[in-house]
């Protein structure tokens, strides 16, 4: 009951709201564009949850943690970072370290943490629902 009535699980919502997200799957993987778009914000928020990171670091972390299955290109990563910043979920700040080039680091905000909790829960519900439909759980 908890998840079946959850509006966030409805397909129209996902296709409507996550149309900007562009996570590039490896070419030889099947295309699941709706799914990967929905996950992009969750990925970024999760990565800056523990500590501040710059954009390139975020893209490399996604790639390495997914063993190369998920990749962000710059053209989609940075607009997404700006959008999350605009929504007040993350905050970017230029930091200059000794003998290093000035970099823009992102950290999660209190509002971002709240959203991250919600997104994790929604994602979990989504995966569970898909598993139920496809019978993965019982396989």
């Amino acid at each position, binding site marked *: 009951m908890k998840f079946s009535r959850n509006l966030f699980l409805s397909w129209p919502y996902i296709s409507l709201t996550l149309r*900007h997200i562009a996570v590039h799957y490896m070419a030889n993987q099947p295309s699941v564009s709706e799914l990967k778009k929905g996950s992009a914000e969750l990925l970024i928020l999760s990565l800056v949850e523990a500590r501040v990171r710059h*954009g*390139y670091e975020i893209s490399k972390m996604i790639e390495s943690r997914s063993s190369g299955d998920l990749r962000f*290109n*710059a053209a989609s990563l*940075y607009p997404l970072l700006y*959008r999350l910043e605009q929504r*007040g979920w993350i905050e970017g700040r230029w930091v200059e370290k000794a003998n290093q*080039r*000035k970099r823009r680091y992102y950290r999660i905000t209190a509002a971002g943490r709240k959203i991250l909790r919600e997104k994790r829960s929604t994602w979990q519900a989504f995966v569970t629902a898909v598993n139920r439909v496809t019978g993965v759980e019982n396989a």
Partner: protein
Amino acid sequence: MPDWKQEIERRLAPLRLLPTREASVAEELSQHLDDHYRELMADGASAEEAQNAALAGLDRHELLRELQQVERERNWEPVTPAPSGKSLFSGLGGDLRYTVRVLRKAPGFSMFAVLTIAIGIAANTAIFSVINSLFLHPPGVTDSARLMAVRVKYEKLNLKNIGVSLTDFADVRDSKQVFSSTAAVQPANFNYTAGPLPERLPGSLVTWNWFDTFGAHPMLGRTFTQSEDVPGANHEVVLSYTAWQRLFGKDQAIVGKSMLLNGQSYSVVGVMDRDFNWPSQSEIWVPLGLAAKEYGPDNRFNESYDAVARLAPGVSRQQAEAYAGVLSQRVASNSDDYGRYARSSQWGIFLTSFSELIYGDLRMPLMVLAGSVGFVLLICCANVAGLMLAKSSGRAKELTIRIALGARRGHLVRQVFVESGLIAACGTAVGIALAVLAVRNAALIAPEGSIGSLAAPIDRSVLLFSIAAGMASALLFGLAPAWMIAGAKTFEMLKEGGRSAMSSKGRQRVRSTLVIGEVGLALVLLVGAGLFLKSLIRTQQLSPGFDARGVMTGAVSLDAKAYASPERRQAFFTAVTQNLAAQPGVEAAAAAVGMPFGDMGGASSFSIEGRPLAPGDPGSHSDISVTTPGFFRASIRNPEGSGTEQLTIY
């Protein structure tokens, strides 16, 4: 390393980002490409392969599409909540959230604006809390607007406003159809010797219904009964909160216990609430305990009391004032000596509001102060309006684009007022806190006794006033930027959008007007403050008619039983003054009931020996001070007054 920035800026060009924004995005993207390039090179790619692969990740169309979406959201964000709403308030929440974000992004501006308004609101709140406490809601008094002070005047003798005699009081007291309750008071000090050191307690002798007339209730015990306000039975005392706290350590079981006053035992019957302090400085109240004959016609023109009366339900102040005139006329129309004297001196009873009597002298200075702090608030508003104008000039391009994209001008104007409202709300909150501190500290640094009874709490009326002042301020300082938006022509805005708003003639005119207004108001305040200081200096230099330097005063109250006869009292004062005069360094000593500028003597009629009265002359009537010989010569160093040298105590 390839120079990515040029290529990135070329790709970003169609977006027409603000230069600072474009530079920031280009810098970040070029760093990303640097990192990627370096990594590809490390993996063995050639320079050309690495450059091509890095740039491939920055697909031009994808980048433009995504960034365009972000930038559009960024520009439209403030407009999105309201445009479709019909109601004035629809989308207000969105405007508010946007304003919070805008203000948080400009902390310097926000803090300065809030503090500026806070100072203006604090000054106004502090002064209004004093006005409220003195004139609108005196502490401890229920429905103060219906509490009147009964006063007497002698027009012909130029005595415009003095206390009443017991006879006058009785006339008013017995007019039950007009006054529901009437009470009289006379100041009295009591010797209290039960403490670590003997001390004189400032107190009051009151008629039994003193507290009822004020609508005041005791915190512990009760107030007086009618049977206690008769000769010999008046050995009860009601304590003030201060006395209860100071003398008895807030003893909850104090009621029923006895205390020695002037060597006699008085039973404590009650303790008043902390806020009841009438007359001010009074620490204890004792029943007047006078015989009925004291209220008879013989005391008609001996004014030694103050009286208050509460209007009966349904009786207006005008009706009561008219009735006081009737009472006066009744006395003046008598054919006896009292009637003749009342007519010839143009005597009369009249009413004035209680707070007017107590704080009437403060009304004008307070009104001047209220006007001054009003000016301060106006200056603050003009300052913040100027700041908002300057700030809005930095957002000219944003506003222009929004109008061009279809944002309603009314909505943009509303947003200005939401911003000014938010600043004013924060300023009001901070201002109220500052006002509380200001009033508290003013009471601490004021000379003792000057505003001793003044408690100026921030009650509901003060809060409402502050909120109203805050809202008025928001309207005032939001007006100029709002007017600029409402009146600006889109075409002109588009022309000027990219440039500094300082180039706009209209904007400059508004700013000039604000500055001229500010300077004008500041000048008025400056001149006012200068005049005030000058008056203060002159007041300090004013001669009271005698040389008060080196004169010291003390007070003593005699035990009524031990000094029952005039001879004993006379002997006591003669001995004390002679002893004092014999001390080294003392030029002369004297005793008096009633010091200059004091209020202990009362007023009475008198005649001067050897000076017959002309027909129609009512004779003399004045404040009376009973003194020992040498009072003028010694105590106030006035050698011209050395003629009155006979001590007689009646």
